[in-house]
C-alpha cells in the first residue's frame, strides 16, 4: 500500500462550495493517483484564513458547514478502488487563537498545521492535538530546526511532512531542498512522511514513489526509511487521526478488522444542515448499527439488548 496524504482541494474558504469544473479536475487527479498505484489518499482542504487577530473571517459554529469535502456524494464512484480521507491544514499565526481546534478533530480525518512563527510552532507541538506539521518549503522556515523540539514532537506522535512537488517547481528549488535537509537533519531521519502536495489542476505533477525515492536518498535518507515515509509512517499518521475520532482516549475502540481505516460506513447526513442538527460527527451508535450485519454478537451487543436500545 502507498499513501499520498496531500492532494489539494480547490476551495479556500469555509463558506464556498465546489463547482462542477473543479470536481472534474479533482477526479482526474484521483484517477491519476490510482494509475500510479496509490491506495490511500487524503484530500487536503487548506483554508486561506490564518488564526490571528487581524483575521476577520470567523469559522461557523455549525459543524455541518465546516467540512466542504463530501466524500459520499461527490466521490462515491471511487469506492473499492482507492480509499479517500479528508484533511485540513490550518496556518497558525497567533497561538492564542487556536481554541476551535476541537471542532476540526471531530470532522476531519487528519488535522495538520502550518506554523508561520516560532511561537506558534512551539505551541503547536506542546499544546495542540494534531497529527501532522507541514511547512511552506519554498520560503524560509519560521525558525532554526532543533533536535530537541522536533524529536519531542515525534515522540508525541506528530510527524513532519515533505512535499515533492516543491522540488519539481523551478521557483525556489534550492531553498526547498535546503529546508527539507534541515528538517531531515533535525528529526534524525525519522518521523517524516512524503506526500505530493500537488494542487487540484496539476495532475501531471504526481509521481510514482519509485521515482521520488532517489531524490530523497540524495538528501541523506536511507532507502528503507524512504519506503517507510510512503508506507508505514504515512499510515501511522492516518491511524492516529482515525483513532482520535474512533476511540476512547486513543486506547479502546470497537471495530472489525478494517473498521478503523475505513470511512465508508459513517453516519453523515448532509441534507439536514438547515435544521441546525449536528450530523457530521463520525462516531456514533448508528455507525455501529450499520456494521452490525457483518459481525457476530459481542459485548456491546449484549449490553444494548439488555437496555433495549436495539
Amino acid at each position: 500500500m502507498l499513501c499520498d496524504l496531500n492532494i489539494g482541494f480547490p476551495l479556500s474558504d469555509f463558506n464556498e462550495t465546489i463547482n462542477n469544473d473543479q470536481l472534474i479536475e479533482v477526479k482526474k487527479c484521483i484517477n491519476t493517483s490510482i494509475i500510479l498505484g496509490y491506495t490511500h489518499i487524503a484530500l487536503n482542504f487548506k483554508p486561506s484564513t490564518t488564526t490571528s487577530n487581524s483575521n476577520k473571517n470567523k469559522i461557523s459554529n455549525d459543524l455541518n458547514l465546516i467540512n466542504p469535502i463530501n466524500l459520499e456524494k461527490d466521490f462515491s464512484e471511487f469506492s473499492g478502488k482507492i480509499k479517500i480521507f479528508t484533511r485540513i491544514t490550518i496556518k497558525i499565526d497567533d497561538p492564542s487563537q487556536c481554541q476551535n481546534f476541537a471542532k476540526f478533530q471531530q470532522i476531519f480525518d487528519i488535522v495538520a498545521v502550518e506554523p508561520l512563527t516560532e511561537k506558534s510552532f512551539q505551541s503547536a507541538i506542546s499544546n495542540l492535538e494534531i497529527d501532522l506539521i507541514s511547512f511552506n518549503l519554498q520560503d524560509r522556515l519560521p525558525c532554526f530546526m532543533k533536535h530537541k523540539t522536533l524529536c519531542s514532537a515525534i515522540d508525541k506522535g506528530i510527524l513532519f511532512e515533505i512535499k515533492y512537488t516543491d522540488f519539481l517547481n523551478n521557483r525556489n528549488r534550492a531553498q526547498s531542498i535546503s529546508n527539507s535537509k534541515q528538517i531531515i537533519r533535525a528529526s534524525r531521519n525519522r518521523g517524516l512522511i512524503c506526500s505530493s502536495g500537488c494542487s487540484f489542476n496539476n495532475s501531471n505533477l504526481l509521481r510514482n514513489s519509485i521515482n521520488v525515492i532517489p531524490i530523497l536518498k540524495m538528501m541523506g535518507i536511507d532507502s528503507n526509511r524512504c519506503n517507510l515515509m510512503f508506507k508505514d509512517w504515512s499510515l501511522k499518521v492516518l491511524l492516529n487521526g482515525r483513532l482520535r475520532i474512533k476511540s476512547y482516549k486513543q486506547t479502546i475502540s470497537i471495530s472489525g478488522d478494517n473498521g478503523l481505516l475505513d470511512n465508508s460506513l459513517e453516519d453523515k447526513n448532509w441534507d439536514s444542515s438547515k435544521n441546525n442538527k449536528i450530523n457530521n460527527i463520525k462516531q456514533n451508535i448508528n455507525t455501529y448499527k450499520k456494521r452490525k450485519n457483518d459481525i457476530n454478537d459481542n459485548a456491546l451487543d449484549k449490553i444494548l439488548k439488555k437496555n433495549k436500545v436495539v
Partner: protein
Amino acid sequence: MVRLKTRYILFQLRYPDFEDTKTAKNVQPKTLISILRASMSKNFGDIGLSETLNAFTIKYFSNSTSVGILRVHCDAVEKVLGAMFFVSSVDGKNVIWDSIGVSGSISKCERRAIQINRRILRDGKNNENVDDVLDIFI
C-alpha cells in the same frame, strides 16, 4: 578486470490529459534519450551527463502502449530514476514518466512488460470496444 554491469529500467509514459494512449503515436526513442540526457545535465551537471554517455540505450519502446525498456550503467540507476522524476513533458505534451521496475536481466523486464500488455487487453475487453484495443497491437 571487472565486467561491465548494466541494469534495465522498465518504464511507461502516462498522459494524464488524455484517456487513451493512442494520442501520442510518434514518440521516437531518440527523443526520449535526448530528453533524459537534458534532464540529467540540468539537474546533476556534467557528472550526471557523463554517466549517460555509454551503455545508455532504449532497448524497446512501443508507441501503442507507451511501455519501454532502458539500459543504463549499474552505478547510474539512481540518478537516471531521479532524472525521470524531473521530466514533465515529451513532445509538448504533459507526461508522467513512471518507472515500473529495475532489473539486472532484460528477460525479467520483458516478462513484466508482457504482463502489462495483458492487463491493458483485459481492461479493454471489459470496456466492450475490443476492436479499438486490438488495433493497438496490430
